[in-house]
């Protein structure tokens, strides 16, 4: 199979390697990564040399093709500058490559070759395209990834059920993608489809997404821990509550400061070396005392120590007017110690008045692969969908007529899937003040493998 090179806006496709066009030269160049990003790459400008041939010796057909190329490059430029119109891609499938790759065009110029007019009368014209395109190549077709979840452990496409908390074997707030599933070379954003499977309409406020990469079969810091799994000398007592994950939570009554702590194993801490995690904490309840503020500040301690190794995080105030159950309390950063001992995650709680704080669970999520979807719509009926399309850079709700409703405001960078790794995608949601543990969803994940060069 010869190389195939095309330009397309999804409706019109200009084939640059078949009848009427002879591809004389094209070598995709590798882009540079944008400093400070994980997988953003600078645009690439590179030449494509073509010989246009009018069908049946027709100069008109040759001119038409020339004009079509110019028009598509103009459309690409306009799209890049203003966001108007469809995206325009260059597609490239080298000989024997099973994947047709695409890269979004940002614009370009068409110049006639030095001797282009010499054979013009024979309906032949040599041209040189100088295109500017996205720095990455991705598959032209989306691929649905097989997923496994806690309650449906066999990897498969078609959707997997997830719950709004984790209890071993019975409920899980994540789907796992096998290390062999994600292809390509560089991290790639997925299209995440979340279907309301709760049985009723959910008026979300926030949907938190985080994706962690695991060495195959290993545990790490991202595992959700139950509040009642705290370790001595942690304060408080375990209290039963059917609305809490696992039916139990940690209840603490205090004035001044209280520091419940949870121990993490050597394996979990070493997997976190040099990295930063956000902590989402589900507070089943906390006292609201007029004029008082309950503050929470995450800390890292030695297993038997009290010195805060994470003192750069500001305190977070728990809501003053009503109890908000699911709270992003800030980050913890681990030092770069790959042979680290186990450590304790501590929630330092502060209050000048006597209060009660109920901690249901803590869910750490990787800070460099974290995204919040803020929902501003009127509700997602049962079986309807919320889509976070990191590929296209859009998020929306889909109604019963498959129409997109732009009531989902994505915050933060798109989630990234890493090729060759176990990718575990966590999802937590709240309805504003409450974060019921039975906000059940069904998750599907689609992606396009990405690479920096094609044919290399």
């Amino acid at each position: 199979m010869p190389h195939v090179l095309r330009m397309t806006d999804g409706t019109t496709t200009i084939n640059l390697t078949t009848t009427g066009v002879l591809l004389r030269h094209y070598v995709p160049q590798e882009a540079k990564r944008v400093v400070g990003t994980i997988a953003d790459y600078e645009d690439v400008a590179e030449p494509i040399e073509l010989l246009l041939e009018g069908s049946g010796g027709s100069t008109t057909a040759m001119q038409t093709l020339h004009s079509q190329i110019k028009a598509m490059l103009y459309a690409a430029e306009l799209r890049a500058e203003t966001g108007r119109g469809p995206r325009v891609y260059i597609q490239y499938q080298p000989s024997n490559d099973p994947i047709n790759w695409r890269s979004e065009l940002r614009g370009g110029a068409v110049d006639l070759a030095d001797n282009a007019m010499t054979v013009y009368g024979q309906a032949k014209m040599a041209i040189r395209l100088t295109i500017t395109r996205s720095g990455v190549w991705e598959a032209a077709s989306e691929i649905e990834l097989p997923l496994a979840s806690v309650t449906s452990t066999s990897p498969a496409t078609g959707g997997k059920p997830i719950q709004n908390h984790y209890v071993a074997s019975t409920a899980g707030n994540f789907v796992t993608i096998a290390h062999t599933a994600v292809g390509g070379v560089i991290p790639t954003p997925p299209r995440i489809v979340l279907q309301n499977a709760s049985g009723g309409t959910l008026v979300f406020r926030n949907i938190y997404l985080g994706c962690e990469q695991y060495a195959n079969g290993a545990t790490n810091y991202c595992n959700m821990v139950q509040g009642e799994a705290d370790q001595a000398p942690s304060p408080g007592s375990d209290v039963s509550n059917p609305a809490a994950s696992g039916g139990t939570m940690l209840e603490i009554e205090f004035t001044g400061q209280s520091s419940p702590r949870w121990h993490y194993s050597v394996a979990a801490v070493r997997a976190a070396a040099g990295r930063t995690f956000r902590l989402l904490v589900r507070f089943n309840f906390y006292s609201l005392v007029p004029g008082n503020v309950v503050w929470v500040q995450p800390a890292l301690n030695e297993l038997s120590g009290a010195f805060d190794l994470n003192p750069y995080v500001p305190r977070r105030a728990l809501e003053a007017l009503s109890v908000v159950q699911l709270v992003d309390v800030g980050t913890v950063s681990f030092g770069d110690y790959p042979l680290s001992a186990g450590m304790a995650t501590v929630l330092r709680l502060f209050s000048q008045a006597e209060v009660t704080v109920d901690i249901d669970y803590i869910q750490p999520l990787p800070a460099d692969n974290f995204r919040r979807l803020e929902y501003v719509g009127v509700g997602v009926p049962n079986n309807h969908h919320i889509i976070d399309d990191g590929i296209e850079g859009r998020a929306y709700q889909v109604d019963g007529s498959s129409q997109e409703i732009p009531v989902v405001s994505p915050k933060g960078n798109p989630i990234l899937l890493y090729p060759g790794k176990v990718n575990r995608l966590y999802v937590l949601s709240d309805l504003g003040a409450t974060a019921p543990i039975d906000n059940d969803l069904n998750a599907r994940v689609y992606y396009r493998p990405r690479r920096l060069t094609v044919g290399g």
Partner: protein
Amino acid sequence: MFTAEFRTLSNADLPVVDGLKVEPQWYRWSTRGGPVAADIKVTGDPTRLWSLLALLGRRAVIFNSHYTPVWWGIVEEVLVSRPTRQDGLSLKKMINRTKVAYVYEQLGETVTGETDWAENAESIARFGFIKESIETQEIEATPELAEAKRDLLLAEQGRAVPISGPGGQAEASVLLKCIGDFSTLAWRYYDQPIGLATHEADEGAEQALGVGFTSSRVGHFTPDKISDLDGKFRKFPTGRVTISGTNFGNNRSTTITAVDSRKVVDFPTAKMAFEANDDWIDSDDELDVFAVGDWTQVTDTNNNNGFWRVRRSGADHVIVRGAGPVLGEISHVGNIRRGTFISVSDTVATEEPGANITVTLHGQRIAQAFSITGTTGWTVAKIELRLGRMGMPSDELQLDLCADSSGSPGSVLESVTISPALLAEERLENEIFAFSNTIALNPATTYHLRLSRTGSNNHENFYLVELDQASGGVQLWDGTAWQVRDPVASLAYRIEGAAETTEQIQGIVAACGQSVISKSSIEASSGIETNQYRDGSMFAYDEIVALMDAGTVSGDGLIAEVTIENILRIRAEPPITAITVQQTDGEQWLDLQGRPLPKGYLPVGQWIGCDDIPSAVAELYRMSPKFLMEAEYDCQAMRIRSYSFRGEPEVDDILGLD
């Protein structure tokens, strides 16, 4: 990569139109408020950039690459830049609530005042906050002119103010200039009526306190003179006086109309001759020290000892009357004592000294009723009066705060005394009585200030109190009852409450935080109490900064930070031993593990160690650690680009700029 998001003041999401690229440029943190300033640049489709004007007055939050918020505040200016021109909107000069102060001459008198507040309701509803200004007219203006000026100001500046200028950038962009939430406290004046009750003297007058004496050497002389042979009236003030202990019906309360301030005279009889039946003769013409109405006492003569009153005076010849006739005599050892007198408004019967008479000036105690305004009570921390002394009293001056009892001072709520040594002699100065700040004054309740001396009355060592004769209310104790002073007057006083400075900050935030700063959290009580009254002439921001500058009673500084939840946190500076950040000579800022600080983190309000400075030098010259007061982060270069440690001069100070 840094990003920014926008929200309404009620925390609703304001997504930026698709296709626009939001790039925070820099931001600054300070120990005075936390996030204080930032610039955010937005580029993209020029036709869509104009939609960003709607972000004026809205919340902006800057996130680092971990989607951790690193700065937050309010968009104060939106500037749309094209290649040749910039246009935008600004809140800087917007005023949606204002009043105008005026001054003018009326019948030769200077009249000052202020108009009522007026506001642009539409602007307040649009933005959700009030931005106030009290304008002062530079030229003379009547109230009518001032009101016209006020209304014109609201018409011109009541909404966001358009701004424009040349220049711009080649690429169409919008610059969002942002201020921290703390800065919005400079949008409202802080008016706090609690904690002050005052009466100033418009027409000042002195009132003596604790003046009087008892003596057997007081005589009366018809029609109006009361004398004391020892000169005890010499420093007597005027006013009402009560006489008791007389034998001839002279017990009464009357008014002193004049005071004889001559010195007491002891006249040697060797200089003169007694001649029958009523004459004293002096060939040296020195008898003019005696005046008509004087009571005198002759002692140590052979025939003329006793009390004599002068009926006619002259330098060479005095005619006197006594219990009997003058007998002729030349006495070389005798003496004639002449004291001083007061004239009173009543007619008195002539009465020879001898009875044990008590003379009491009204004002043994002085009382003034008062009540506080408003609807909230407060506790008394200090009372300021204008006081002085005559001579040097041997007792103390006592001020009682009393409840009311049928219009007069009742039970004593608290008493404070001060030493006479603290008072100026023969003049009035402001003096402060420090109260415990525990006695609560309630609105619509009458209280009394009552002044008295802790010892006995005295004729030359007593106290002076300033009154205001332009109003009434003061009562004087005559020895047995309270009397309204004649002429009426009021005590000049200033009663102040006090509250802890950090508690006051809470009150200021509650009053002026508007929808921007929802509440405050005081994590370090200052332990310093000051008067909480504010007359509304200063912005809330300035009031808070002034209170913070006082620090705590233990000498610690205070740090203010408005959190992302819009709560003003007030906390004490960390101890100098709490060093969690190091600064290297390569402008690296390192954490505990020696790693670069998290991107975008500014360690403002912390002690920064400079470990390359030798420790002895660092300690001796206080070069390390240093307390970071302010710092600025460059989001493009991703580094801390400027900072200021405590004690280091600002660039503007060095350049001599305001």
